[in-house]
Every structure is written in structure tokens, then in C-alpha cells.
């Protein structure tokens, strides 16, 4: 049994193409059933996000499966058969495992380390589980992918530093004020960026928001959104001493806060530190303000610099993540190959033979006065028992080889007789569910 991946992503297809092959999350039943209805496909999962559309399948005939999956993606969406030839990639076996582990761990994402992709794959898997298009192998496979992703997340700092300007602002604030609880944010102007950043601040503990705008109504409106307080544009400088974080993006052509004013503010604050995020172009705050002790002024370029540095960190971390993934591939691959019938029968026989030999040795050492003839007949007797016992399981395993769900028998035998190479850790209970005939 082989794992196969066919799909396209932001790396191979522009958005115009991706949107044409996307699957609607509200109607997954029909595509999933059509997908696993394909003759070469045993189990199937469809992952469809705004950055990628991928089909995961298991098959005994990888060649045919790849061709059928490629055709399925075009025909299902009513495209020409060769419309996606340039965009689609396909992977099998170890490569397919690597690809899915990398995708789940967010190494293949547009922004490396972004956290959504794992949730999206979990949802996709949820549909496949709901419509019963995933069986033993894909169940194990996906759970393995989830645990690999979790390992990557905890053992590397791939997702630890902000890669968006507004999150970068929050992180900076955390390096200045250890906690944002009880801090006050002032929004000057009503730029979208400021609003977004303010929302991040509020989500991270900021409790008090003040808003000011040249148009007072707009300040009021935004203040209501944040359950904060609106200030008129003339008044706001008087309140600066209570503000810990300023987010500003007005369209003003000149500086709205000068160094002199801020020196006065910081004196009134008894030197309590202030973080000022100036997203406006042209800038709202005199850059000299950064020279004042205890005021930290960041403009758009500074924040971009932080984001770039963090991205670089993530790329370094990604290398480590690849190492983790390689390790996990090996383990999963061993389990997958253990599902082959013939090697399983061979190791089952070996196990029985070991037991027989061991027990015989024990008995013979107690029964020292047996004649060689007697010994021989005991040996023959025990062999016959083993053969009789193993006859039916062997036939069933051989017969099930080409059946749907035959892997379940192989897996069960491996588990019951302790033959398995260490199965990928995680969800043994998943196995029980898939064995359940219901």
C-alpha cells in the first residue's frame, strides 16, 4: 500500500487557478465519495485552503492512482483535462509522507510557521472521517502528521516571533512592559493598521483604549468598538501622561508630537516607559523623540525590520524542523511497510518457532532420559500444533491481501503477536475505530 499526494499550492499555481479548483467546505461529501470511488484509490482525504488544494490517498497501484487523481481534480471542476498539467505536483511513498508532514508543520506555507494550516488539515481530516473515506492508513498517517506538527512547534521556535507588523508591535511592548494587563493604548487617527494593532493589544491584556481623530465622530465610533474613550484632537495631548502605548497614523503633513512635548510627558509620567508606534507616512512623531530616555519610538520601517529579522529566525528554525520530520518519516515508513502481508506471515511463523524452541529446550532439560526417538516425535508434535494453529490466520491474511480493509488484519496480527516495529506513537485507539465494522 502506498501513500499518494496530488495537488497544487501557492508555490505552483496563481490564485486565479487555485480558486477554480478549490472545494467548498460546506459540500465535501460528494467530492470525497467520488474521489474514493476511483478504481485505484483505497482511502482519500481532500485538503482545500486558500493556498493549496491537495488530495491524499492510499493505493496499491500508484501509477494509476496518480493519473486518476489528476484527472479527478480537473474533471470535478469542469476543467480541460490538461488545464492543470503545469501546476500539479504528485508525490508517492516516502516523498508523500514528507510532503504532508511539512505541510502540517507549516514549513510549506507562504509565511513559514503560520498556525492556521494545521487546523485546516484537521478540519479536512474531520470531513474524511465523517464520510468514512479515510481508513486505517490515512487515519494513522494524519494523526502522525498532527503529532509531528506539534513536535515541530514545541521543539523549534518556528512560530515564536511575530511576522506581522501589528504582532511585532505587541511583542515589542512585551519586551518593555512585562505584561500588557492594565496598560492604556491611545489611537491617533483612524488608520486600519492602527485599529488592527489596537485589537491585538486588547486581545493581549490591554484594558483601556483612548481614541482621537480630527473628525470627532470617527473617534467616537472607534472608541465604541473598543469600549474606550474618545478624545477631541485638541485635547488629546493633555491625556498623554496616562498613555503607555501610542498607535498613530494620521494624514498630517507635519509632526503632530514634537520632542519638547514628549519630554514634558515623560516627566509627568515619572519616567514610566512609553512605546510609540508611528505607522503614518509621512511620520506623525518627530524621530528625535526616540532619544528621550524611556520612550521607544518605532516607525513603519523599524517594524518591518523587526518582522524581517523574525522571518530570518523562522527560516533558521525551519532547518531544524526538517530534521525532526526526517526522523519521523523513517518511523512511519517502517510501520507502513510492516503492513505488507508476506513479511508479516514470515515474522509470525518466526515468532511461533521461537516460542516452540524455547519451550522445548526447557522441557528437554527436565526430561533428560528421553530416547532420541521420543525427542523426535515430541518435536514433530509441537511443529504440527503450530502449523495447525497458524493455518487459518495465514490463509485469511493471504486472502485479505486484495480486500478493502485487509490492512486491518495485518495490523491486528502485528499488534496481537507483538510483531510490529514500533508503531508510530499516537492514537492506537484510532486503530480500534477503524477495525470496528460499524
Amino acid at each position: 500500500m502506498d501513500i499518494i499526494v496530488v495537488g497544487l499550492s501557492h508555490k505552483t499555481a496563481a490564485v486565479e487557478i487555485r480558486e477554480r479548483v478549490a472545494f467548498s467546505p460546506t459540500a465535501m461529501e460528494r467530492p470525497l465519495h467520488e474521489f474514493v470511488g476511483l478504481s485505484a484509490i483505497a482511502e482519500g482525504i481532500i485538503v482545500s485552503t486558500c493556498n493549496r488544494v491537495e488530495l491524499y490517498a492510499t493505493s496499491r497501484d500508484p501509477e494509476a492512482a496518480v493519473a486518476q487523481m489528476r484527472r479527478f481534480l480537473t474533471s470535478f471542476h469542469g476543467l480541460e483535462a490538461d488545464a492543470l498539467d503545469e501546476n500539479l505536483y504528485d508525490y508517492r511513498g516516502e516523498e508523500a509522507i514528507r510532503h504532508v508532514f511539512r505541510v502540517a508543520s507549516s514549513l510549506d506555507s507562504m509565511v513559514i510557521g503560520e498556525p492556521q494550516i494545521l487546523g485546516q488539515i484537521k478540519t479536512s481530516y474531520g470531513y474524511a472521517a465523517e464520510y468514512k473515506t479515510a481508513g486505517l492508513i490515512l487515519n494513522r498517517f494524519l494523526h502522525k502528521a498532527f503529532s509531528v506538527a506539534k513536535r515541530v512547534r514545541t521543539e523549534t521556535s518556528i512560530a515564536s516571533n511575530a511576522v506581522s507588523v501589528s504582532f511585532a508591535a505587541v511583542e515589542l511592548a512585551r519586551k518593555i512592559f512585562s505584561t500588557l494587563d492594565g496598560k492604556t493604548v491611545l489611537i491617533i487617527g483612524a488608520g486600519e493598521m492602527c485599529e488592527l494593532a489596537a485589537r491585538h493589544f486588547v486581545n493581549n491584556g490591554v484594558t483601556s483604549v483612548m481614541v482621537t481623530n480630527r473628525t470627532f465622530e470617527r473617534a467616537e465610533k472607534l472608541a465604541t468598538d473598543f469600549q474606550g474613550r474618545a478624545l477631541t484632537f485638541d485635547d488629546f495631548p493633555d491625556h498623554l501622561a496616562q498613555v503607555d502605548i501610542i498607535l498613530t497614523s494620521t494624514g498630517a503633513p507635519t509632526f503632530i508630537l514634537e520632542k519638547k512635548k514628549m519630554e514634558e510627558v515623560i516627566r509627568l509620567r515619572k519616567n514610566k516607559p512609553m512605546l510609540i508606534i508611528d505607522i503614518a507616512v509621512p511620520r506623525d512623531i518627530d524621530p528625535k523623540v526616540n532619544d528621550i530616555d524611556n520612550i521607544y519610538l518605532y516607525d513603519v520601517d523599524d517594524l518591518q525590520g523587526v518582522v524581517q529579522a523574525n522571518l530570518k529566525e523562522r527560516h533558521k528554525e525551519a532547518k531544524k524542523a526538517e530534521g525532526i520530520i526526517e526522523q519521523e518519516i523513517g518511523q512511519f515508513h517502517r510501520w507502513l511497510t510492516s503492513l505488507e502481508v508476506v513479511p508479516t506471515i514470515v515474522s509470525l511463523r518466526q515468532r511461533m518457532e521461537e516460542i516452540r524452541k524455547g519451550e522445548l529446550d526447557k522441557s528437554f532439560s527436565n526430561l533428560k532420559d528421553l530416547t532420541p526417538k521420543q525427542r523426535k516425535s515430541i518435536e514433530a508434535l509441537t511443529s504440527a500444533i503450530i502449523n495447525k494453529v497458524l493455518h487459518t490466520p495465514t490463509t485469511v491474511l493471504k486472502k485479505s491481501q486484495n480486500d478493502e480493509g485487509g490492512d486491518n488484519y495485518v495490523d491486528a496480527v502485528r499488534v496481537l503477536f507483538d510483531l510490529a516495529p514500533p508503531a508510530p506513537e499516537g492514537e492506537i485507539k484510532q486503530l480500534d475505530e477503524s477495525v470496528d465494522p460499524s
Partner: protein
Amino acid sequence: MTLNLLFFKITLLLYFVATVLYLIDVIARDVKTGRYGRWILIAGFVTHLVTVISRYAASGYTPVASLHESLSFFAMSIVAIFLLFDLRYRLTVLAAFVCPLALVLMIGGGAVSKKTQELNPVLDSWWFPVHVSLAFLGYAVFAIAFAAGIMYLLQERMLKSKKFLPLYYKLPSLDTLDSINYKCLTFGFPLMTMGIISGAIWANSAWGGYWRWDPKESWALITWFLYAALLHGRLTVGWRGRRAAIFAILGFFCLLFTFFGVNLLLGGEHSFSALSGR
């Protein structure tokens, strides 16, 4: 080798290992050796206690008379106070700044004469252990403030210049560092004050005068005024952050001068007999 010297060497070794583990944790990207460093440091502290107690047993006086003993006691105080802070803050980075300090003191202690003193009758007063314990615990607290001050200045520089070294990610927030500075001040200042007062009382009982303007006394007073100024500034005019960090660093240098410089350069009643040959 006497028992206390054996334990001194074991302690030195443990501190060395702890320092290396802490430094690796802070310098290397993803190696988390700090936890082990903590346990080794605790082990070192225990052997250090044994060192001091066995030395007390051997010499019959609180072993803070010679330079060797003072350095060792200073290092032990720093480790003790650090471990107390560690309960509250759990800062591996702080350890990476504090442990080397204790280690250097220990190495210094290992390099000078380790002979025990003849029992000077002046030392045979229970004011002696009280005075030195208070003084050294105060010193140790200010050593932590010194380390936090350096960390603050580094972190502040990176935030201002917007150039972030890998250390940036490991250092705690400015606010945390500043609150360590304040905590140290509120603990260290009373300890130091009581150290000076107990010293005066002891001086009165030993020499019949509370204060004799011995160079060490004068310098201790200068140091005391420096920390008093910082505490006052913090409480009234809102000195904090960079200025408080710089003060903590200056204060510690002043303190080190009181500890070493006065003995080495100026002499006086407090000088270590091992150095002055008395």
C-alpha cells in the same frame, strides 16, 4: 589538605560547571542547559556551606577574616541571594550574569593565601558574624542589582537602536529588570544599613568608639550615600530604568572598591591580616 579546602575546591568546580551550563543556555540557540545549571549551583551552595562550617570548626572564628575567607564568603552570599531571587523570577539569563561573578570571586579566593589566622581577640565577639553577614548579604543583593543593571542597559540599547542580537530574545522585559533593580534596593539598602550600624556597635565594644573614619568606614559611607540617593530618587522623582541601572552599576563598583581597593591601597583597621601581614 584540610577538609574545608577540599570542599572549597569542590565548590569552585561546581560553580564553574554551573556557570558554563548557564552561559551555554544563553549563548546557544536552543540548548536548554539552565535547569541542570540550577541544580549544580544548588549543590555548589551546599558544599560551600560545608566549606564555611568546617573552616569555622577548624579556626574557631567566623571565617571572614582573611582575604581568602572574605572572597569565599562574598561568593557564597551572592549564590544564596541569587537562589532566593531565582525562586521568584526563574531567570536563566540572570544566572548567566551572576554566576560568573561568584566564580571570579572564588577563583580569586583560591589564588590567595588560605592560611587560617591566629584568633585575634577582637574577632572573638558575636558582633563579628552579625556585622559581616549583614554586610555581605547586602553586597550580594547589590551584586544582583549590578547584573540586572547590565542586562537592562543591553536590552535598552537594542530596543532603542532597533538592532536585535540573539540575546534580545533571551533577555526579559525592561520592566522585569527594573523591578529586580527596585527589589534589590529595598532589600540591599536595609541590609547594608544594618551592616554599618552593627559594625559601629562592634567597634564601640572592641575599641571604645563607634566611628573612627577608618578608610573602609568612609568608603562604606560613600557607597551607602550612593544607594541612598538612588532609593530616594526612585521613590520621589521617579528615577527608574536606565538611570537606576547605571546607579546600580556605579554603586557596585564603589562597593567593590570598599571591599578590595581600600584594603589594597589605603589600609586601615579593616585590612585583612593576611595581606598586611599583621
